């Protein structure tokens, strides 16, 4: 105990020394590193470092958008970057789509507060990728044009199947957008308190509308690639700073963190959130949701239509998985580094006599402050700008995916029955981008004070219970009919939403209706099997003429999926 106590005192002292040394070396002009903190908004000087970095990033992305706009002529350019993206580029873009600000700031914060527990999320978020590669990526590229609904409706009835797929895509996209918008508003407001929450959200909405309407998928992809590079570089530098401080010894890093964290050894034993009870069903349901939810996110699936061919689609998952896996290992080091360097540091902690963990500016700040602790004001500005860039890039990808579901699936196929011209379709898509951008801003403002903790559960549950099973069945199971796909799809959507509303987060905490009727946070373990059963029963009992034709059409679908014959042509070179 004595040892722990002295370590408790020694480490922050060393940390503070290290931080001052680094920050004074990096920036001799700004005397007070505390200038960046947002505790007392009225008195804080403007965070110029962050603002300059924001402006540089926005400037570069606008140039990219301009260049992309001059090269975006056809629908294939707009939706799928002309199918000229290489495997490596798409791997970066996939990683960019997936490494959202929520996973960067969120996982580091989970580790910072709970230790080991954060890794369980990282693992769950990664293992969806091999499944995407083994089962989906190449076949998706061979069968589809712009959306995953193209693949599901390949041999089924266009109207009802696309409507179902588009509705579920839009539910996922819009809720995901709300989460991102609220995060963007809070983050930007915390980093630059002179910008209000609303102004921050409006700025994000305005920028992404410009990127996507003018630059389409080309601009979105390049913004994503640049941001992925910046985020991987920034996170690597942070992890390097932590390891340099700990003498490049993981043993020392973890020992120091255990000594310093108020929960001590608990942070190494936290297989569930500290203070929570272990619940086998909940763990398995969470696992199913994270794993299969990844494989059903519309903006992720859309990336596979941008590459030249199935081989590039395949390679892009390998690159993407490696980048994301590397990134998650970094977030783990960063989270533990924050326990050592940020906790108990009066510069960052709100009220050190109350809790040595609670930070100024809220629970998502550990990674941001760690960047300051290892690299001073300029590095903090850089990491803050990267976090902001991350939100912009992810929101762009989401908005484009949502707009494509509306224009390509609903407008061109369901409403116009395929009679719309390419020009009309792209025009509608751009209008939808503007509409979705405005909706995201309004909802972001409406949800400012709401508890948005259920959003990840909601989007991933619907993706895992609707998009993923319907897509896999349409690719692999000859017997799937329109009736089966539709009933399964709506079972997944309605089942997920109803059980989430009846669950502990919404029913008990948000609606305050008393004990939850459905006692689990993640309904996937009930809904996913139900979806599979519904699809099976509804398809097998379907003996209509059209069902017979749909089953017979499977052979042609299989040939195209396996050989790529008839698949959308990729660009030769770009």
């Amino acid at each position, binding site marked *: 105990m004595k040892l722990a106590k002295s370590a408790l005192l020694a480490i922050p002292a060393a940390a503070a020394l290290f931080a001052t040394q680094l920050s004074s070396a990096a920036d001799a002009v700004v005397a007070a590193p505390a200038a960046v903190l947002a505790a007392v908004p009225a008195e804080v000087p403007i965070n110029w470092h962050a603002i300059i970095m924001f402006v540089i990033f926005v400037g570069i992305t606008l140039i990219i958008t301009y260049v992309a706009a001059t090269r975006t002529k056809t629908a294939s350019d707009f939706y799928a970057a002309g199918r000229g993206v290489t495997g490596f580029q798409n791997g970066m873009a996939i990683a960019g789509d997936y490494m959202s600000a929520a996973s960067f700031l969120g996982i580091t914060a989970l580790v910072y507060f709970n230790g080991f527990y954060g890794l369980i999320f990282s*693992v769950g978020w990664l293992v969806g990728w091999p499944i995407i590669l083994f089962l989906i990526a190449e076949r998706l590229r061979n069968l589809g044009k712009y959306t995953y609904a193209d693949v599901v409706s390949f041999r089924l009835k266009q109207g009802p199947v696309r409507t179902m797929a588009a509705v579920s895509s839009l539910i996922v996209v819009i809720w995901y957008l709300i989460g991102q918008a609220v995060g963007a508003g809070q983050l930007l407001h915390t980093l630059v308190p002179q910008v209000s929450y609303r102004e921050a959200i409006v700025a994000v909405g305005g920028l992404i509308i410009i990127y996507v309407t003018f630059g389409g998928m080309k601009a979105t992809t390049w913004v994503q690639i640049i941001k992925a590079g910046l985020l991987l570089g920034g996170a690597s530098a942070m992890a390097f700073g932590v390891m340099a401080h700990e003498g490049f010894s993981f043993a020392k890093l973890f020992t120091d963190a255990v000594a310093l964290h108020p929960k001590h050894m608990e942070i190494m034993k936290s297989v569930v959130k500290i203070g929570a009870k272990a619940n086998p069903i909940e763990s398995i349901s969470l*696992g199913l949701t994270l*794993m299969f939810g990844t494989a059903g996110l519309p903006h992720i699936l859309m990336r596979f239509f941008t590459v030249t061919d199935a081989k590039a689609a395949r390679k892009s998952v390998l690159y993407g998985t*490696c980048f994301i896996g590397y990134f998650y290992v970094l977030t783990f080091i960063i989270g533990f580094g924050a326990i050592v360097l940020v906790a108990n540091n009066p510069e960052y902690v709100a009220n050190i006599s109350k809790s040595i963990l609670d930070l100024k500016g809220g629970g998502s700040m550990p990674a941001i402050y760690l960047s300051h602790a290892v690299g001073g004001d300029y590095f903090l500005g850089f990491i803050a700008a990267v976090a902001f860039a991350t939100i912009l890039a992810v929101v762009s990808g989401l908005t484009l995916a949502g707009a494509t579901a509306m224009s390509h699936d609903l407008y061109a196929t369901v409403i116009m029955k395929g009679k719309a011209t390419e020009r009309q379709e792209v025009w509608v898509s751009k209008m939808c981008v503007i509409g979705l951008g405005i909706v995201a801003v309004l909802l972001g403002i409406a949800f400012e004070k709401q508890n948005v903790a259920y959003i990840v559960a909601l989007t991933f549950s619907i993706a895992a219970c609707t998009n993923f099973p319907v897509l896999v069945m349409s690719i692999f199971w000859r017997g799937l009919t329109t009736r089966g796909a539709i009933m399964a799809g709506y079972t997944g959507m309605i089942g997920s939403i109803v059980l989430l509303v009846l669950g502990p987060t919404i029913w008990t905490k948000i609606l305050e209706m008393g004990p939850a009727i459905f006692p689990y946070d993640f309904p996937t373990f009930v809904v996913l099997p139900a979806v599979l059963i519904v699809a099976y029963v509804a398809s097998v009992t379907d003996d209509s003429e059209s069902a017979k034709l749909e089953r017979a059409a499977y052979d042609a679908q299989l040939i195209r999926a*396996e050989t790529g014959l008839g698949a959308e042509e990729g660009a030769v070179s770009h």
Partner: protein
Amino acid sequence: MSVLIASKIQKNPKYLQLIKQRDTLSWTLSAIVCIMYFGFTLMIAFTPGILTQPIAADSVIPVGMLLGVGVIIASCILTGIYVFIANNTFDPIVNEIVREASK
């Protein structure tokens, strides 16, 4: 794709074998990932004691941390294995099938 080409491909034994091989590989690797990951999840649920054991008497690092990082690394390796086999084994067969069918 014309009906003629489609029927040619369907009668090609190489095509049938390709589907069989690729499906076997896809589902086997998927099963390995699922077993690995849900094994890890089930350990969290039922035997947390094993995961929280330190890897050595004088270490604070728990076994679960190594297993978790192990699952991440294994996922990357398995995707690499699939890409390697697909590039070197499946792609040449696909090219052959397509060439034979369009003759």
